[in-house]
Structures are given as structure tokens and as C-alpha cells.
């Protein structure tokens, strides 16, 4: 190098210095895949994007949440109400909770069970006619207040009879006989009431 001013020496020195071609290519490629384009003054974008998002996010989130709720409401797998009620009343039967109103008369119980918002009826089913009433207590079926009667056959085997108003859920219930947890179960509707009878297998 000839004699020259210091700044010329420095310029030549630094201008001869470069990052390796591999590193240069790597760094340029980074800018290429970056959403922010090289050479652009992105200050405006970066400042506006969060503001825009800040205002848009709440209605978007609400909209998404509502959509999710609607979808869940219409497409949720419906639980089998018959199976659900069957399990519930069999469980109640097995608990054998103490009778709140010992009585052998439906008419008497009708007077005593004043919290019920429906009138008890004495079913005309033959299964019931042959059973002796021992008493009753309040219970609930699918969250609705119901009456639970304890009955006994001639051999001393106990049965539980349920009466409840027919709610929207119970409307979908399939009437019939089935065996649930080793017990015989009979479900039916009579005079706008839901009936369920649980007892030992024959």
C-alpha cells in the first residue's frame, strides 16, 4: 500500500473485509423468509398491527366462542336418557333410604307430600296392584322433584316405585322393561306422569 491518508487506509482495510459467502447467503435467506421484507421501512406495519389486533381481538374471540357454543349445543352427543334414568332410579332403590312418610295409603300420602307440584296417582298396572305400599319419601329424577314409594310383595321382597312429572328430557325416555344391575326395571308413562318400578328379578 502506498503512503496515503489514514482514512483511506481504513476504508480499504474495512472494504476488503467480508463475512463468508456462506454466512452472507444464510443471512440474506433469513430476510427472504421473514414476513418483513428487506429494505422496507416496516415501522408503520409493526406499530399498526398490534393496535389493529387489539381492537379486532375481542369481537373475534367472542364470535369464535359463540360459534363454538352453538356447534356444541347442536352437535353434542345426546346422552341416552333411558339409560341415565334407569341407572339413577336403580341407585336410589339400592340406597334404601329411610321412609319419610310411612303409610299404606296413596290418598294419605297425597295429602302428606305437599311439596310435590303434581298429584300422585295410584297406578292401575297389575304389577303395582299386587304390591303392598309401605310408605314414601321425596327424591329427584334428573334434577326434578319426584316421589319414591316403597312397596313389598307377598314374599317380603321390596320394590321401589317412582312418580315424576314428564319433563322434556323424560319425554324422550323409552318405555319398557329391562334388567339393570341385577334388578328388574320397568318404565312407563301414565296419566301424564312418568313411572318407574325397580324390583328383584322374578
Amino acid at each position, binding site marked *: *500500500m*502506498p*503512503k*496515503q*491518508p*489514514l*482514512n483511506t*487506509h*481504513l*476504508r480499504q*482495510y*474495512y*472494504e*476488503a*473485509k*467480508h*463475512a*463468508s459467502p456462506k*454466512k*452472507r447467503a*444464510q*443471512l*440474506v435467506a*433469513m*430476510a*427472504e423468509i*421473514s*414476513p*418483513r*421484507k*428487506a*429494505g*422496507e*421501512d*416496516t*415501522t408503520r*406495519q*409493526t406499530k399498526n398491527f398490534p393496535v389493529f389486533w387489539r381492537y379486532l381481538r375481542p369481537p373475534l374471540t367472542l364470535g369464535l366462542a359463540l360459534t363454538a357454543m352453538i356447534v356444541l349445543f347442536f352437535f353434542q352427543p345426546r346422552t341416552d336418557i333411558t339409560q341415565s334414568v334407569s341407572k339413577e332410579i336403580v341407585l336410589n332403590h339400592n340406597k334404601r333410604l329411610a321412609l319419610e312418610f310411612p303409610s299404606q295409603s296413596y290418598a294419605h300420602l297425597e295429602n302428606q307430600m305437599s311439596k310435590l307440584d303434581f298429584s300422585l296417582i295410584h297406578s292401575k298396572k297389575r304389577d303395582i296392584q299386587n304390591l303392598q305400599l309401605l310408605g314414601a319419601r321425596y327424591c329427584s329424577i334428573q334434577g326434578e322433584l319426584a316421589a319414591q314409594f316403597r312397596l313389598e310383595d307377598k314374599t317380603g321382597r321390596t320394590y321401589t316405585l317412582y312418580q315424576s312429572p314428564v319433563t322434556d328430557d323424560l319425554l324422550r325416555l323409552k318405555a319398557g322393561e329391562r334388567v339393570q344391575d341385577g334388578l328388574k326395571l320397568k318404565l312407563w308413562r301414565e296419566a301424564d306422569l312418568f313411572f318407574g318400578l325397580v324390583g328383584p328379578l322374578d
Partner: protein
Amino acid sequence: MPEERQEKTKTLLRHGFRYALSLTHETTQAEDLLQDAWVAVLRAGGPQKRAYLFSAIRSRFLDQRRRAQLVVIESLEDNSPYLGQEIQPSNEMIFANTEMLDKALGILRPVEREALLLSEIEGYTTQEIAKLTGQARGTVLSLIYRSRQKLKKHLLLQAGKENHA
């Protein structure tokens, strides 16, 4: 990426590399420093401008030095005798080759090399350097003056040794 934009990126990276090199005085370290800063700039979506990239490089360099406890903080009052002046390029003719310059720059502190590069190569004014480096203008003026003197002295010594040899 359009060709023009790619060229701008390459130019920006070239400036970035030189600036990083002025701080580290070591090629591999400068490359790593530039990469760290470049990634940060892209991630932040910051403006791809020289001052922004330099600032990112500088803060990363200082972080590294702090971690290694290598930062020598030199307090220079803003009452430098050069305050109120603008450093003018020296017209004094000096003999130097790349090896000599490399050695001479190696004896300077990073802040001195940085100040020299910014003023002599990048064409920054002392006010701009002061803003970028967060130092008082007087400090920058002193840095530039001292580093020039150190560099000249070292180069003259080297040249003398080579002549004797």
C-alpha cells in the same frame, strides 16, 4: 425477493459486518454478532436500516462483553477540548499495509475502533455517533482523536521497524 431488495439487504449486511468487525476485531465473532443482531431485527420486524442494525449489534456486543466482564468503562467528561469542533479527516500521508493496520487496530479498544469506523468509513457525524452509542458528543470527539493518534503512532512505529529491517 426482488433483486433490488436483495441488493439492499446485502449492502445493509455488509455495513453491519464491518461495524461488528470494528467491535470484535475478529471475523468469526463479527459474523456471529451480526447474525444474532440480524435475527433480532427480523423477529422484531424492525426497520431494516443501518442505524437500527448497528444499534442491535452494539447492544449484543455489550451484552457479550458484560457477561464476560470485559467492558472497561472509561469516564470521559463532556468537557473535551474538542467540543464544538467536528473532526476533520487527516491529510497526513502514512505508510501502512493490511497486516500493519490489522495489528494497529488490534491495539485499539472496541469503542475506539467503533468510533473510527463510524466517522471515517460510515460517514457518521459526531452527533450521530453520540446518539448511536449513547455517549456525550465530547466523548465521541475525544475517542476519535485519541484512536487516530494511537493508530498513527503505531503505524509509524511499525513502518520504522520495517524500514530498519
